């Protein structure tokens, strides 16, 4: 048997977990609602057949209020799957069955997978599976998706029930609405109004629920019938408003819940503990989301995360830095001096090595974030920050987009921009997707880690926390500015379900962390490698002209004049401790000529000229031409800032005995200090999003205007912030 089976259910009911169990996939599972925004597909092979499994976004209803609901419903209507596996959270049965009822009203083939049976049992809930199945007239299979229990029985039940015809469920919605539904059905059937896609009574229901997608589709197909239906809806709406002081949507929801309640009351569910007993999660939340304690705990959590990351990553990062230094020195000794050696050592090893050196730091950071996410704490952060976000014209749903983008350093702005889709208000959505790039994505992390290690080594975690707070404050202030000027509009309310606290599994933590490390390394081996090569070329060519090269040669000849060739060779090949004082002076003079030549060659290169041209603006923020080139390269991917600095300072390095790490080189480099470093950190936080994010903003807003705005506005803001900081800092420290 070959069939398409859909996984559908409420957010955070375990659809993606079951999807991974059935398909052997490794899709991201998160302990917060809304992880899946689009459908995912995979294959499940069992004894009974081969099933194409589609994981739909979590949704509470099938009314087109949000993108997730539209995606889910469109798929069900257009693709007509052989079976829907409706994942139902057994510990929240009544609320979850609300969606099941809507599937049944559409006449869709449904099989209920009663998930989290273990949680329900712990909460003292007993469910009579047979009775529930009998009363709903659909198969119900108990499962625990987390460890795969019941999945074989579930797929066997699916195979058994595929192809069986089903009549749509008809619920009574009270005298007023039932009469209206009958009247509308009588209009819909003869006109064949949307009957190819929907059951007539369901279409009528959607009209009463004011479902804009169905209404628009109806208008396009048959305007006359649509207007007649509109007239019925308006009449009923007015009547209900006068007599019951409510609206049809409210009555429909009440009756659906009434139906579910009546089913459960017939001995389906029994509570062994007090039904209203406060669960462990609620008890934890009383402290963790407390009005005053909550924010303190949140800051402490972030601080703890950064402390954990730096404490455990410092030593392996140092190992990797030493390793790349050793590789660089080996390559330098093995290859003859020339372009190939320069490309390999300065372009590739020192460029990519700078980025790859931070793999342990990225690993520990991701591990910590995965832990916070899997426990359910990230969802609490959304809950707590909602009030603050509303003050700045954003929405509670914006919080998750911010966190996804790197609210806790280590995310990515691209999915953050896409996560803004969950916002229903277009203006709040626009404000969100224009401000999420200010968060500290995983690509900015190596830049911060490099500068923090070089200049703030004594208080790494504190500075990292400060960077996080600056980026949040900046993003909120910009959101407030945008919402008060360019994108004014009302705020909309926020409703969010807090998932229960769960103990993360080692497997889950490992998968999450491993995935991200692989992506980081892959990116370093592809994009960063390519850009490192290109920037090396830009920093190498055209080089010095013959006249200048000869002038440097003449300086060298002057220094070694009077010495025999043997002595000159000895000076350059022997270690310093084996040289006499006069020989050391000659060596230092020769190295100085080398340094002068390398610096002049760099300044004369394409990148050098570009960087120097930008210096007229950026010098007020404390940046020299090398930093400028790194920042320009950072538009392609922010890690490039690190790799470019690695290449730039490697090309300027002339003594093969010196193989210091990049942070070591920066610490001793001219023009660098804590003030310049923090100015660069500020610039990196705020300046233009990377290329991929800009494209994503353009696609999501449907306009290149906003993408261009984010590039120009953000870069101007970054320059302003870093210049003000650097100038004030210089005055204070003067």
């Amino acid at each position, binding site marked *: 048997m070959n069939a398409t089976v859909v996984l559908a259910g409420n957010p955070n009911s375990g659809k993606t977990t079951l999807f991974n169990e059935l398909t052997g996939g490794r899709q991201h599972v998160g302990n917060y609602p809304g992880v899946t*925004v689009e459908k995912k597909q995979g294959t499940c092979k069992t004894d009974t057949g081969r099933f194409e499994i589609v994981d739909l976004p979590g949704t509470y209803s099938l009314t087109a209020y949000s993108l997730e609901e539209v995606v889910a419903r469109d798929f069900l209507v257009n693709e007509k799957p052989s079976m829907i596996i409706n994942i139902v959270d057994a510990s929240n049965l009544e609320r979850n069955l609300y969606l099941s009822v809507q599937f049944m009203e559409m006449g869709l083939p449904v099989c209920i997978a009663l998930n989290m049976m273990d949680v329900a049992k712990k909460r003292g809930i007993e469910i009579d599976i047979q009775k529930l199945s009998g009363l709903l007239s659909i198969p119900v299979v108990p499962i625990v998706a987390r460890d795969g229990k019941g999945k074989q029985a579930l797929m066997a039940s699916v195979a058994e029930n595929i192809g069986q015809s089903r009549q749509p469920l008809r619920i009574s919605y009270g005298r007023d609405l039932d009469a209206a539904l009958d009247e509308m059905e009588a209009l819909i059937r003869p006109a064949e109004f949307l009957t190819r896609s929907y059951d007539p009574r369901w279409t009528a229901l959607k009209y009463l629920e004011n479902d804009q997608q169905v209404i628009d589709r109806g208008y396009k197909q048959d305007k006359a019938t649509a207007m007649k239906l509109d007239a019925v809806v308006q009449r009923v709406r007015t009547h209900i408003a006068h007599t019951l002081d409510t609206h049809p949507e409210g009555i429909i929801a009440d009756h659906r819940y009434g139906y579910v309640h009546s089913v459960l009351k017939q001995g389906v569910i029994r509570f062994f503990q007090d039904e209203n007993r406060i669960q462990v999660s609620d008890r934890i939340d009383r402290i963790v989301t407390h009005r005053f304690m909550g924010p303190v705990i949140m800051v402490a959590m972030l601080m703890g995360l950064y402390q954990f990351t730096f404490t455990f990553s410092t030593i392996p990062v140092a190992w990797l830095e030493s390793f790349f230094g050793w590789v660089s020195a080996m390559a330098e000794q093995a290859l003859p001096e020339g372009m*190939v050696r320069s490309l390999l050592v300065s372009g590739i090893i020192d460029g990519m090595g700078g980025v790859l050196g931070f793999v342990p730091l990225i690993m520990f950071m991701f591990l910590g974030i995965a832990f916070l996410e899997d426990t359910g704490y990230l969802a609490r952060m959304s809950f707590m920050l909602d009030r603050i976000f509303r003050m700045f014209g954003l929405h509670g749903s914006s919080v998750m987009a911010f966190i996804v983008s790197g609210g806790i350093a*280590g995310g*990515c702005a*691209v*999915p953050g921009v896409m996560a803004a889709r969950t916002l229903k208000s277009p203006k709040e959505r626009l404000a969100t997707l224009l401000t999420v790039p200010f968060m500290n*994505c995983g690509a900015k992390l190596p830049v911060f880690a490099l500068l923090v290690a070089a200049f703030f080594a004594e208080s790494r975690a504190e500075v990292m926390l400060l960077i996080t707070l600056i980026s949040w404050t900046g993003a909120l202030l910009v959101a407030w500015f945008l919402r008060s000027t360019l994108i004014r509009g009302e705020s909309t309310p926020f409703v969010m379900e807090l998932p229960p606290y769960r103990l993360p599994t080692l497997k889950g933590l490992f998968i999450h962390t491993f995935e991200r490390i692989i*992506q980081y390394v892959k990116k370093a081996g592809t994009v960063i490698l390519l850009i490192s090569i290109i920037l090396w070329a830009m920093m190498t060519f055209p080089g010095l002209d013959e006249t200048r090269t000869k002038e440097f040669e003449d300086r060298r000849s002057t220094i070694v004049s009077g010495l025999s060739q043997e002595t000159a060779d000895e000076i350059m090949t022997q270690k310093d401790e084996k040289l006499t004082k006069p020989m050391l002076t000659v060596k230092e003079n020769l190295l100085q000529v080398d340094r002068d030549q390398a610096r002049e060659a760099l300044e004369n290169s394409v990148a050098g000229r570009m960087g120097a041209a930008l210096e007229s603006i950026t010098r007020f923020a404390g940046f020299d031409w090398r930093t400028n080139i790194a920042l320009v390269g950072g538009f392609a991917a922010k890690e490039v800032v690190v790799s470019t600095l690695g290449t730039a300072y490697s090309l300027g390095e002339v003594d093969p005995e010196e193989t210091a790490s990049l942070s070591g080189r920066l610490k001793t480099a001219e023009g660098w200090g804590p003030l310049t470093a923090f100015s660069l950190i500020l610039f990196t936080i705020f300046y233009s999003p*990377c290329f991929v994010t800009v494209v*994503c903003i353009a696609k999501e807003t449907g306009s290149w205007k906003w993408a261009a705005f984010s590039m120009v506005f953000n870069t101007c803001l970054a320059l302003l912030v870093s210049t003000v900081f650097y100038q004030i800092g210089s005055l204070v420290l003067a």
Partner: protein
Amino acid sequence: MENIIVGIIVAGAVGFMVKRFVDIWKGKKSCGCSNGCSCAGGSCSSPDPFLKK
């Protein structure tokens, strides 16, 4: 000879980079998130918190 080798490597890097940019622009190329989808094309399946660019 050395200049030719370096020239080929740099030209290859430029070529690959341009292709990658064009692919991202057209929405054909993944942003790098583990879902292997095309974020830029507006069809990424997960707002994953940690990605992965």
